[in-house]
């Protein structure tokens, strides 16, 4: 039989002015299981708490109900008080008789009755409470950052500077990401590489950072604080310790005409290459698909010329097993290419290019040394049309969202063009100019006012080539949808930003949810923008949605703090309000039948498959198991489970059922 203590608070006069607290305490004392019932002026005060503590000891209480304010206010206070007195804190409950009663009703019998009903319900609930112990999860203090763009670099550096080990994994041969490809950055027009490369070097030299480039995530198991990750380190085909990065091999490689990924196909690279001169690490990789040796078995020029004999043709991929406590996903984004737009030539007009290609054209280290020349014949274009929202905000193209960065970089592109080709004409077709951000609107105005970029509000319906010109047909909606036709030398499409290639597979490996466009999904759109629904996995940068450099960097620092906070103690302590699948004696083992319909319901991927085996090791039953490290205690699986095999500690079926029955026990006045 329970031994419950009831403590009714006056809250000064906040409660007692409308509720007859003495009557509530008195009536409660007559309820079955109640052995002690008092009222007091301020329960939350020190003397009030002492009342509770002493009663626990004196009456050997098995449960405590404090009728006072909202549990959202003082539940922790009274739980702590109970704990000090030796009562499990989860054996206390609060009846909200202030916010939900005395403050919202006038003085009267009904108000007192309501207060009593609520107290009675909580007494009933608390008699069904069980003692719970906080869940402790050990934390491996090593972070994994996936993606070596600016967001990944920032997150890795921030975590490393907090004194934690970081593994940074990048899929391409060098870190740097898209930012390394950019010419200048808005709104300051400072050189992108100038600000980025020092950070890249810092990563390479940081004692707490282990860098794996040309590597990918193979698999991820485990949960927050305890991930087990396999990293596939692809063969660079060289001994990285011996290679000095002198670059001799790259100059001697006979294959020279391979379109460069870094140059967006506008320049060439050899088969053994570093993507760009400032690459980190500055060690080449061999591209098997284009290497003469791998194709014909002959050549090995690189091996011959290498002064340190570092080339290893037989090298194979290696799989590294690492234990990780937290993961930051910073895998970035990609853009649609011009071949996505049949109305703009479907990629067949060489002079219709995308934004990244323009960045390379404008970059001093690019294929044209920063001269704006059109790809078809190398001529300097006298008239360029920039089309914003190419694909973005276009449901017909399946991309309803705004890519967010294009308005700004289109303004930048037009401006850079005008700075380089003074007699050139720049036309921008736009839907709306979205220049929200510090100095952003001013930047766009500068393009229009100072650099005389022609902005036309309207869409371009089609582009076709005629006599060496690109005929751009559009409409000017500010002039009554008048048709506009421009004979351009070059067209730059600000194509839609999209989720990076492979993000879906990665999300599935990570058990992270993703949206319809394959961008990773944050845990809460407002309050948990860097968390995912999987505990211990965080997001940084454009893998969540396209965003610009300052946003990516802030987000990366945010994610880094989340990781650092997680690493701040050896054990992760979690509230024991988690779901649990029941276990009963064999041969059933659980009433769970393993239908796993709860699995898709769990927002946290906390429901795992547990296999019960007989002594010979044969699986005799599969049933659901809740990973307490991941479960956040929403209880959706509990309500869904048909066989009532899952229960939510702290809000068990028994507790809720008895609370409902008890609150309705008496006729309301």
């Amino acid at each position, binding site marked *: 039989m329970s031994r419950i203590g009831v403590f009714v608070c006056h809250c000064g006069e906040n409660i007692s002015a409308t509720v007859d607290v003495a009557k509530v305490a008195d009536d409660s004392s007559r309820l079955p299981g109640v052995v002690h019932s008092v009222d007091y002026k301020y329960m939350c005060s020190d003397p009030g708490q002492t009342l509770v503590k002493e009663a626990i000891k004196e009456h050997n209480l098995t449960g405590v109900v404090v009728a006072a304010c909202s549990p959202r206010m003082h539940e922790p206070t009274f739980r702590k008080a109970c704990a000090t007195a030796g009562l499990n804190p989860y054996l206390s409950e609060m009846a909200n008789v202030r916010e939900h009663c005395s403050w919202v009703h006038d003085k009267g019998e009904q108000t007192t009755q309501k207060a009593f009903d609520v107290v009675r319900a909580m007494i009933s609930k608390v008699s069904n409470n069980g003692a719970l112990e906080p869940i402790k999860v050990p934390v491996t203090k090593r972070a994994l950052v996936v993606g070596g763009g600016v967001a990944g670099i920032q997150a890795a550096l921030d975590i490393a500077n907090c004194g934690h080990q970081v593994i940074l994994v990048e899929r391409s041969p060098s870190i740097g990401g898209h930012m390394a490809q950019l010419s200048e950055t808005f709104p300051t027009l400072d050189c992108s590489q100038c600000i980025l490369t020092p950070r890249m070097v810092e990563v390479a030299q940081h004692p707490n950072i282990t860098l794996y480039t040309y590597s990918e995530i193979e698999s991820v198991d485990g949960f927050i604080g305890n991930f087990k990750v396999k990293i596939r380190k692809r063969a660079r085909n060289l001994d990285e310790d011996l290679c000095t990065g002198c670059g001799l091999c790259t100059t001697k490689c006979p294959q020279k005409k391979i379109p460069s990924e870094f140059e967006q196909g506008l320049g060439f690279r050899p088969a053994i290459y570093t993507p760009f001169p400032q690459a980190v690490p500055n060690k080449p990789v061999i591209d098997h698909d284009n290497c003469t040796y791998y194709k014909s078995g002959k050549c090995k020029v690189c091996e011959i010329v290498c002064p340190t004999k570092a080339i290893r043709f037989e090298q194979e991929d290696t799989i590294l097993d690492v234990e990780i406590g937290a993961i930051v996903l910073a895998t970035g984004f990609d853009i649609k290419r011009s071949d996505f737009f049949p109305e703009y030539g479907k990629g067949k007009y060489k002079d219709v290019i995308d934004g990244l290609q323009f960045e390379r054209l404008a970059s001093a280290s690019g294929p044209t040394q920063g001269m704006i020349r059109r790809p078809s014949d190398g001529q300097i274009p006298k008239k360029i049309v920039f089309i914003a929202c190419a694909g973005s905000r276009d449901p017909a193209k399946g991309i309803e969202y705004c890519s967010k960065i294009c308005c700004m970089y289109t303004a930048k592109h037009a401006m850079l063009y005008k700075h380089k080709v003074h007699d050139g004409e720049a036309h921008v077709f736009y839907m709306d100019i979205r220049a929200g951000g510090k100095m952003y609107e001013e930047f766009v105005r500068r393009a229009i006012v100072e650099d005389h970029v022609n902005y036309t509000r309207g869409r371009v319906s089609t582009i076709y080539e005629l006599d060496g010109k690109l005929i751009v047909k559009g409409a000017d909606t500010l002039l009554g949808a008048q048709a506009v036709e421009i004979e351009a030398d070059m067209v730059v499409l600000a194509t839609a930003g999209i989720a990076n290639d492979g993000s879906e597979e990665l999300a599935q490996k990570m058990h992270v949810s993703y949206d319809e466009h394959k961008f990773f999904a944050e845990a809460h759109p407002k309050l948990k923008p860097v968390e995912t629904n999987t505990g211990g996995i965080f997001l940084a940068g454009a893998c969540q949605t396209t965003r610009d450099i300052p946003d990516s960097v802030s987000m990366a620092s945010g994610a880094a703090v989340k990781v650092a906070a997680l690493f701040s103690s050896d054990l992760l302590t979690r509230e024991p309000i988690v779901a649990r699948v029941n276990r009963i004696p064999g041969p059933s083992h659980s009433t769970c*039948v393993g239908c*796993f*319909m*709860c*699995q898709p319901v769990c927002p946290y991927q906390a429901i795992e498959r547990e296999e019960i085996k007989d002594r010979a090791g044969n699986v005799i039953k599969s049933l659901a198991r809740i990973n307490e490290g991941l479960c956040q205690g929403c209880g959706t699986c509990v309500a869904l489970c048909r066989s009532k095999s899952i229960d939510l500690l702290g809000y068990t*079926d028994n507790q809720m*059922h008895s609370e409902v029955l008890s609150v309705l026990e008496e006729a309301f006045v």
Partner: protein
Amino acid sequence: MDNLRKKAKELLESKTVDLVIGYENGTNGKARAVFIKDPEKTGKLIYDDRCKQNLAVYLNKHEVKHYGKIAIVAPLMVMRSVLVLVSECQLKPENIVVLGIGEDGSLLDFPSLEVVEKYIAKIPLGNPEPDQVIIDKLNAMSMEQRREFWQNELERCFKCYACRAACPMCYCLRCTVECNQPQWISAPAHPLGNLEWHQLRTMHLTGRCVSCGDCGRACPLNIPIHLLTMQQAEEAFHMFGVRAGTSQKADSALSTYKPDDKENFIL
């Protein structure tokens, strides 16, 4: 029918399957389930209009599962039930061979469950016409009339649980009615207990019912309880666009959602 027997025999002879579940001639002109292990006995198999039982119910049965790989004579409702059971991890696709029966009674060749899915995708699904007619009639009644109708019907229930036993989707080891901590459902067969039981059954089958009607046929007291789950099957389709037993994926109506599910009653 000859094709069916031939195919069943082949499957047993080649040891592709260990057991064939089908229909045979029962007593008093009824058709009933038969379990054949011996290829020589496949001559017992029949298929005609009397074969109404949803044989998928046996796929959950401990003794039947024990045999190993099973071929099942499957008119549409059985096919759909098989898909539901697969999607709910109660049946491994590699352990079942579907001997499909077309709408014209012909044997359909299903090399895999994917082909079953494709077949079902082409067929208009819904409740059997006569049942839907009654459902429509009930829906046309006033709320009060419907309440009276169901009260009179459900009052008679004596909780033999034949409805539960006949349903392939009611495979729980412990049904909620057998849970007494807390006592979710009043166990006695009084009007409240009966109402609670049938509400529970209906809700638990929402999005999972394949409209086979076996619960109603099983009821010894002729209570038309199958209308409840059938109505929910239609509702689930109208509200969520989901029909049970169309794919092997776990995507039933109540374990998934769309952010833009449309309702008109939440304030």
